[in-house]
């Protein structure tokens, strides 16, 4: 114990450090900002009209940020409970995992009418729209966080779980000391991805039309969208810059420090070479105030929680024999099943009322979007493969570019899209080209990061052998890079394709400078159906798209992935 305490009274240590100064300044600035935002908000910010004045931007940014934060908190809560429940309960797992797979491929606009309608029934309109927007953002964040939690929980080494059981960890301790730390790194990386996903759909989530009603919430997303509608490039540029500033600030002030701190949760038991560094984390680590907070507030609080929730008498069973579901559980599952059947019947009713012409529309749209998705994937592969290999095989370059690429990946393509459109709409077939471009912009990063990881995993020996054999150019690609990168490319492509399908709803149907531009595609069908309040069409198109995505995943991508794992995995 002596050892732990004397850090507080180390001789010769200054009473306050730079870290403390930063902490104090940050607290002060945050208070000032909060007060200012709360008491001095200009009237225009409260809507309903979106002001394009630069002075409104800080408020819009703050509101959007709070909305994202709320959605993210919700996502995290959902993901951890869903993921752990699926990992603990073998029976539930069989339903929950496929369900997650389906939910992941539902485009976010398709959730909109359901969410909005159910909220407007029980809540006043203003609150309902605000909540609907948060839930929409949630649907672009939650699913892969849940997958990540589930996978971490399932891969906790057996002996670690056994140690937890032998040392009589109750549910709370198992969560706090085993499952949460084990999931932490994956959760943080996926959180960064989730925020990127949230920004991508922010515009769609803050301003939408359902049927005859027009909803808009004050925020950065609606600011950008309004600027695009009015063709105001100046405001558009300002909005984009604000958004990028927000993303960079988040990266520096939240994600990097978190990642640096979470290094301790790396499971590999040897000291790793490449670690994330963060200036803020270093400053905070030296701050006495932070240390005080930890020892005086945080630790006593945790101590009380531990005391209340840890139950040494709880025996933890795991593995072999799943507990029989209790009566209440059976009733609950039964109710869910009945509701499902009823919902299916209603859906069937709704779909059978749809005119044949609509189905033809959907079919043609599906084909068009499918071709676009493939084009986007090929384009993305064409640039990410060479660039990824260039970065991945040069550790120095990787250290330099990786952080930049991570921030770049968080900048939503949707925000830049109107600027791109400005140029493309003048060309014949411009929307077609620009839709592919947006889909590529939205999905290329998954591919790039996987290719970089794959390229940096190629052993030195193979590079040397290739050099000794005199393999250069295409020959080297064919014998070394392409086979070695194959599993990584497939992994990246699976996520990228999912992203591209989802992006089609914002890429194929655009309002710009007062006009609506649409091209043929299932994304356009969904966007139009939402806007016109045509729910049967929306349901049908969504169903077709989800089925297509899930089936191609199962029948094509997963098989390809298994082949890649079996044949081309470098060990």
């Amino acid at each position, binding site marked *: *114990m002596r*050892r*732990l305490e004397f850090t507080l009274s180390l001789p010769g240590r200054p009473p306050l450090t730079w870290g403390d100064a930063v902490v104090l300044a940050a607290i002060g600035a945050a208070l000032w900002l909060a007060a200012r935002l709360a008491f001095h908000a200009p009237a225009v910010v409260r809507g309903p009209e979106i002001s394009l004045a630069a002075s409104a931007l800080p408020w819009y940014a703050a509101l959007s940020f709070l909305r994202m934060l709320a959605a993210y908190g919700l996502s995290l809560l959902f993901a951890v409970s869903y993921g752990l429940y699926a990992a603990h309960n073998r029976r539930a797992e069989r339903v929950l995992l496929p369900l997650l797979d389906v939910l992941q491929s539902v485009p976010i606009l398709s959730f909109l009418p359901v969410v909005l309608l159910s909220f407007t029934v029980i809540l006043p309109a203003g609150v309902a729209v605000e909540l609907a927007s948060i839930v929409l953002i949630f649907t672009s964040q939650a699913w892969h966080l849940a997958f990540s939690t589930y996978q971490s929980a399932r891969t906790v*080494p057996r*002996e*670690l779980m*056994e*140690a937890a*059981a*032998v*040392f*009589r*960890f*109750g549910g709370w*301790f198992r969560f706090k*000391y*085993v499952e949460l*730390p084990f999931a932490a790194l994956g959760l943080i990386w996926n959180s960064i991805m989730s925020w990127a996903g949230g920004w991508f759909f922010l515009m769609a989530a803050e301003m939408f039309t359902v049927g005859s009603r027009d909803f808009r919430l004050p925020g950065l997303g609606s600011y950008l969208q309004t600027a695009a509608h009015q063709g105001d490039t100046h405001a558009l540029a300002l909005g984009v810059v604000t958004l990028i500033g927000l993303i960079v600030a988040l990266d520096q002030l939240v994600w990097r420090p978190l990642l640096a701190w979470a290094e*301790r*949760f*790396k*499971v*590999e*038991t*040897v*000291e790793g070479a490449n670690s994330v560094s963060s200036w803020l984390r270093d400053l905070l680590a030296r701050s006495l105030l932070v240390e005080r907070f930890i020892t005086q507030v945080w630790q006593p609080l945790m*101590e009380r929680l*531990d*005391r209340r929730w*840890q139950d*040494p008498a709880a*025996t*933890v*069973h795991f*593995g*072999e*024999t799943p507990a029989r579901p209790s009566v209440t559980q059976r009733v609950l599952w039964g109710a869910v099943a009945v509701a499902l059947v009823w919902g299916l019947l209603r859906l069937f009713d709704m779909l059978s009322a749809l005119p044949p012409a609509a189905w033809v529309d959907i079919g043609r749209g599906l084909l068009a979007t499918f071709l676009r998705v493939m084009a986007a994937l090929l384009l993305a592969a064409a640039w990410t493969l060479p660039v990824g290999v260039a970065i991945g095989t040069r550790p120095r370059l990787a250290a330099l570019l990786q952080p930049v690429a991570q921030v770049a990946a968080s900048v939503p393509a949707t925000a830049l899209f109107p600027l791109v459109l400005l140029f493309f709409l003048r060309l014949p077939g411009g929307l077609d080209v620009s839709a592919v471009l947006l889909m590529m912009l939205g999905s290329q990063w998954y591919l790039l990061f996987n290719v970089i990881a794959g390229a940096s995993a190629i052993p030195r020996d193979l590079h040397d052998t290739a050099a000794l054999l005199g393999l250069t150019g295409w020959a080297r690609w064919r014998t070394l890079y392409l086979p070695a990168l194959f599993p990584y490319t497939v992994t990246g492509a699976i996520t990228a394709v999912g992203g591209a399908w989802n992006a089609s709803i914002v890429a194929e149907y655009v309002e710009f400078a007062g006009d609506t531009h649409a091209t043929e595609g299932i994304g356009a069908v969904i966007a139009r159906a939402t806007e016109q309040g045509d729910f049967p069409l929306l349901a049908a198109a969504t169903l077709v798209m989800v089925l297509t995505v899930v089936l191609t995943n199962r029948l094509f991508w997963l098989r390809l992935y298994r082949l890649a794992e*079996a*044949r081309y995995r470098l060990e």
Partner: protein
Amino acid sequence: MAADALVHLEHVGKTFGHFHALRDINLTIESGELVCLVGPSGCGKSTLLRIIAGLTPASHGVVRYRGSRLHGVNPHTAIVFQTFALFPWLTVLENVEVALKARGVEKARRTTRAQELVDLVGLSGFESAYPRELSGGMRQKVGFARALAVEPELLCLDEPFSALDVLSAESLRGELLELWLARAMPTRAILMVTHNIEEAVELADRIVVMAKDPGRVLGEIHVGLRHPRARKDVAFQALVDRVYAAVTGRTGSEAEVQGGAPGTGAVLRRLPDVRLIALGGLTEKIAAENGRADLPRLAQAIGADYTALAPLVEAAERLGLARLEAGDIILTPLGQEYAEASIPVRKEIIAGRLLRVPLIRWIYETLQQDDNQRVDRDYFVERLTPEFGAEAEHQLDIAVDWGRFADLFAYDHDSHELYLESD
């Protein structure tokens, strides 16, 4: 039942599907004893330890602790794991402390106690280090400190020294023994699983010898030697030989050695996970010792411990190249021939003998009966699963490897098919 019995197992069995991991185990552990479980890998000794600790329920029979039936995790035990099972995100001190915290010990007391234990195992100075900063031996010291922290009546050790280098293992063994003999810990009995026979003879009061297929107890050997026990001592060596003889057994009849064929209902014997190419080196080594070698000495000469050697010895036994007797391995005439033969002749010898191994023969005949002499791997896995459970795939992989070695049959990785080599 003895009055002092801590643990008492009656007819305990464990099955995974059809596969018998343990069958009819009767075992008593008394207060004051240090008991070692030894046996070849796959004999279920770790499973037995987990049943006693209450981590895994027994499928059959009764487990009693201090006379009452055990349900769930045994609250009077702690385990030291082979892989340490430390929490990588907690410091040395926190790793020890968390075990006390989970039992609701309040902060001041638990920190003092954890610090005492860290001092006891000789890690003072490393309290704030994370496990990844420590060597294997130091990590296992944390494992011991954590286990001792909860003052278990029964301390379970699951191969605690096998992941350590030789020197660390030796010093840690010495320290454990010192604590145990001085009664410096409140522990009443120690149960240790090990594959290292010398280690068992050095530490144990009693050695329980187990065999596999199905996992069972063959017998017990009491170690009457006084501490400290010197490995070079004649009595020590004699005991090591005795345990080796008991563990390796005596080669039985052909039917006993080979077991039954798939689908016949007879008990199948698993193929040992070993590459047949190593048989050359083994037979040459024994031939150089005039055809008969002492197993402990052979293991030492090869620079491996018995675990590494056992599967190879079993393969030699299954293929009729050698037989076992009283802890010695003896070359058969065929084995003698094999040691001297050229590579092509060796392959022929193996091919002939492999067809006597029921599993291999069954695969070979199945392929012969097929029109194209090609059969999907899943066909075999499906039929082997009732026999071997989760190990079916692995057993097939070994069979394929053996078949390839002798040019009997081969495997097409892309089409997942086994096929006969047509010549």
